[in-house]
């Protein structure tokens, strides 16, 4: 599977955090809850995360975890 670069992720396996963040921070229904992240706030979160990422090992570990499963 890895030779062709085609790595299907089977349900239940650990997914890459970065793919999940794409979806939960920029997807989903935005409704006016008593607290709801606005689009602008999400952008801020994402921006600061992208700056953070090189200094945080957790995310990379996370991604490596997901590699091993795929």
């Amino acid at each position, binding site marked *: 599977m890895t030779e062709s670069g085609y790595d299907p992720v089977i349900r239940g396996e650990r997914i890459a955090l970065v793919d999940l963040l794409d*979806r939960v921070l920029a997807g*989903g229904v*935005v409704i006016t809850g008593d607290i709801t992240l606005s689009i602008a706030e999400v952008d801020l979160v994402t921006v600061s995360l992208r700056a953070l990422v090189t200094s*945080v090992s957790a995310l990379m570990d996370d991604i490596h975890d997901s590699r091993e499963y795929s």
Partner: protein
Amino acid sequence: MTANRGWVWMYGVTGEPPGAFADGVAGVGGVPPRTITAAGLTAVVGDVGDREYGEAALRRNLEDLDWLARTARAHHAILEAAAERGPVVPMRLATLFTSDAGVTGTLRDRADDFRKALSLIGARSEWGVKAYAVKPADPAGAPGRPAAGPDGQATGPGAAYLQRRRAQLTASKDASSEAMASARTVYAELSRFAVSSRLYPPQAPDLAGQQAPMVLNAAYLVADERADAFAAAVADLTARHRFVRLTLTGPWPAYSFVGEDDGPGPR
């Protein structure tokens, strides 16, 4: 139910109640989900405390990558559990209400939107396709491909070096534009299998844990009966396009296709 001041975290909305969640299914804050029904719709929610999920705490915690990772995974786990039983419209992460009444009101006020979204995603799933530009030197990407430029014209080691270097640069530039062209083709070809598609910005190489630059980060909403054909098309495109490496993820709850502000197609 909620000790002191609590919040109601909303995961998503289903039509029929999704039924009891398996024992031990814990959501955000380690709390098992429950449901609230109104207007013929069911909200999947969980009770969370003010100390960690109140407005001020939330703002701080969202900047904490470990917290965010844990919370995003918990949010996703509940949505995935619900999606196994039937269509579920995901809420964006961190949609919170002070009480059940707020959730009930939202179900009533937005009933038409939720029903429309449920009918769009019913018997369909989201799939993610990413393409990475493969370096020309990478044997997996361009097996046995000779460097550009005719051989045998060099008159000395210096000239040969320059010629080789020029060929490398040309090959690298070609590979990059080939990869972009492939990404466009892949995106369009896969769209033919999908009800709807959406482009995300490519993930930064550091963030994606990949050396190769990402040239495509797309999500597709695909009818479940076409899921196999879609996966086969991804495999086929991988074989036909040497300058990109494709990855397929999913099925996902339909995160990318329920927001009213995101129409089909590229943003």
